[in-house]
């Protein structure tokens, strides 16, 4: 017993790794604190032109090292196109047509999209392709998706336990559930058969920590937590989760570096700005965790509630498991103060924006995991998505313009709002939603 205690007091690998990252991050914040105000503004500025150049270049040509992503080309499309859309920039006509044509070559004759032309259809690349086409928008892009065949593909991936497989004979996990349900929902082909028991599977993946794991028994993880919560919202079963435990876990993932980590005692990583930060935007849609100045003006913002499943959880601490002792658990966390245009996010939005802009942003364009790492399109997409989540986190919903004080840095940093369940730009979501509800 005594030996154990001694061992636990010795510096461990986890602590050492953590201190090294912390040190690097704090050095950047110290530098920031000590430069003149004008220089600070410059440091916080979103380098729009450089990001756009980095993104556009990738759309046109990638180097030989990208061969390891040769089975993820629709993902490359999505990361880049979504990033450009977040910046509010248009895609030129020719590139847009090229993208539609290319994605169509990734579409399998029997439904779904593969990682490149001729590859097996895969749920993750199907999600990436569909979100890319929704982001491009317009009739040609949206009509290029074979929804009937896609529905057949989704049914083929459906498992008896309610979950989904990634591809024929592929792995079963929470990612597969999210990508399947998200695609079905945005294309308006989500039916009872696809939704059946998927909620049971997600519930079996919520761990003792409160977050959600990739498979039952695994460790709570930011990416899977986003996927699980978003899925539960799409099937209107979010209230079945231990929401109090979920919120406590996700709020605890923001660390002294100001960014989010993916798991307990792991290192900060810019991509979790969206995977963890996005969970707060999802929770906000459940009308929980927003007690202070929450205003409930019914009907003015949930115009699409039927398709995306807005359900409410009036009192997190009111269910049997979390509120044992007889007291009146109906004390409301859902204070109605009509007329307030803003709410306070449960996470520290300013701190997260600081991490994204000062630590993840690469001045020459693109974003990275953390200082010392190289930029890539994945981190660019999820850092920008997280930044947008932050900027609109005070707004009652994504359709109301954020207050200037919600945006860290110059106001030119303001990005387009996203639909947090699908992670596509809100405007594009609305266009697709309308298109597919009538066709």
């Amino acid at each position, binding site marked *: 017993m005594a030996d154990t205690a001694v061992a636990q007091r010795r510096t461990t690998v986890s602590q050492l790794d953590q201190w090294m990252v912390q040190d690097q991050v704090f050095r950047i914040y110290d530098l920031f604190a000590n430069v003149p105000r004008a220089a600070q503004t410059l440091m916080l500025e979103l380098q729009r032109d450089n990001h756009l150049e980095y993104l556009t270049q990738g759309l046109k040509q990638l*180097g030989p090292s990208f*061969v390891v992503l040769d089975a993820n080309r629709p993902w490359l499309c999505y990361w880049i196109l979504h990033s450009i859309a977040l910046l509010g920039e248009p895609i030129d006509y020719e590139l847009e047509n090229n993208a539609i044509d290319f994605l169509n070559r990734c579409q399998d004759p029997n439904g779904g999209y593969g990682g490149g032309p001729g590859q097996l259809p895969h749920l993750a690349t199907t999600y990436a392709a569909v979100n890319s086409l929704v982001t491009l928008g317009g009739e040609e892009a949206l009509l290029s998706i074979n929804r009937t065949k896609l529905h057949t593909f989704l049914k083929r991936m459906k498992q008896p336990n309610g979950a989904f497989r990634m591809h024929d004979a*592929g792995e079963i996990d929470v990612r597969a559930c999210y990508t399947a349900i998200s695609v079905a929902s945005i294309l308006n082909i989500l039916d009872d058969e696809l939704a059946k028991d998927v909620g049971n599977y997600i519930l079996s993946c919520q761990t003792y920590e409160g977050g959600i794991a990739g498979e039952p028994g695994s460790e709570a993880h930011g990416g899977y937590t986003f996927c699980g919560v978003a899925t539960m919202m799409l099937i209107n079963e979010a209230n079945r989760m231990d929401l109090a435990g979920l919120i406590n876990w996700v709020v605890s993932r923001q660390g002294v570096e100001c960014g989010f980590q993916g798991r307990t005692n792991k290192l900060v990583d810019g991509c979790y700005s969206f995977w963890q930060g996005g969970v707060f935007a999802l929770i906000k849609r459940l009308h929980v965790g927003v007690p202070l100045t929450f205003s409930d003006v019914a009907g003015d913002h949930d115009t699409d509630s039927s398709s995306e499943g807005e359900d409410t959880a009036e009192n997190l601490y009111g269910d049997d498991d979390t509120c044992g*002792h007889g007291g009146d658990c109906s004390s409301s966390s859902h204070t109605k103060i009509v007329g307030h245009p803003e709410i306070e996010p449960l996470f520290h939005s300013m701190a997260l924006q600081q991490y994204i802009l000062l630590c993840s942003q690469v001045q020459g364009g693109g974003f990275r995991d953390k200082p010392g790492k190289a930029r890539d399109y994945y981190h660019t997409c999820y850092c920008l998505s997280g930044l947008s989540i932050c900027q609109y986190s005070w707004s009652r919903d994504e359709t109301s313009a954020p207050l200037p004080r919600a945006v860290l840095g110059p106001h030119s940093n303001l990005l387009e709002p996203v639909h947090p369940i699908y992670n596509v730009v809100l405007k594009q979501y609305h266009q697709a939603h309308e298109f597919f509800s009538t066709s």
Partner: protein
Amino acid sequence: MDSDKDEGETVLPSQRPDFADVIPIPQDDGPNPVVPIAYKQDFVEIMNYFRALYLKDERSPRALQLTHQAILLNPGNYTVWHFRRLILEALNLDLLEELDIVEKIAKNNTKNYQIWHHRRWVAEKLGNDATARELQFTRKILSLDAKNYHAWSHRQWVLQALGGWEDELDYCKQLLEEDAFNNSAWNQRYFVITRSPLLGGLKAMRNSEVNYTIEAILANPENESPWRYLRGLYKGDSESLVNDPQVPSVCLKVLSVKDNPVFALSMLLDLLCHGFRANQEFRDLVAGLSPSVPDEPDSDLAKTICSKLEQLDALRANYWRWRKSSLPRAIQDSKN
């Protein structure tokens, strides 16, 4: 399979007489593809030959070799892996050798979904013959990266599908002795005590686990992992949580040291929310923590704790304010 290792990795198909009958099929990228990759020539060639055999559905030894070459250049190509499994099945080959091949590729690609999925498929086919080897293999990967998510998932699958639970609790103990901040090891410990058929389940294990966890907390009160684990030990049973004197006692011990009070305060708050009645000792300890929060009456302990946490854990100030505003009425009313 020997040839799979020798020539398979080096000689390009266009140089091999046994591929002379194959007409390579180029990738259908279209005239102006987006995200085009500047492939190297050997990759283009191998993939063109792969496409030819894949479309013919040729499940032959030479096709197997080709999948190996393709996988070495891009281990993320799930279509190639999928085809490889079809070939392995058709040729009825020795799957123990397949594990060797996967192991070599896995060394440099430990975070690749396809490799782990393939390995699970092979192990499933091998059944009990694979148990010891898979436990050993995941141990090796975890000795390099103790938090590798795929390795842990694979290990859990092996335990559940093939068995080998005997040493698992000891393994967790060993990893936690090396690094008490390894949350993956805590998660694995939870997996073992709740699912091992050799142990009696969560309730039977609770007492000894609580002791173990409390020791870990007292050694590092700033370590979030054992605090979460401690809560987990009472999952779905808040009555036991409130009635076990060991939980408030560890909060008390940590709070008296005053160094790292955040997790202890948070745990105490949960206890109160579930009906725990705190005595004066708790009240005094909480009140004595700096900074002082004069706005709350001393009697309202849960609110005081939230206010303290708002200050001490400023990054989560909004969260603690929300908790304060949503305390169950049961404790809001029990102001002595």
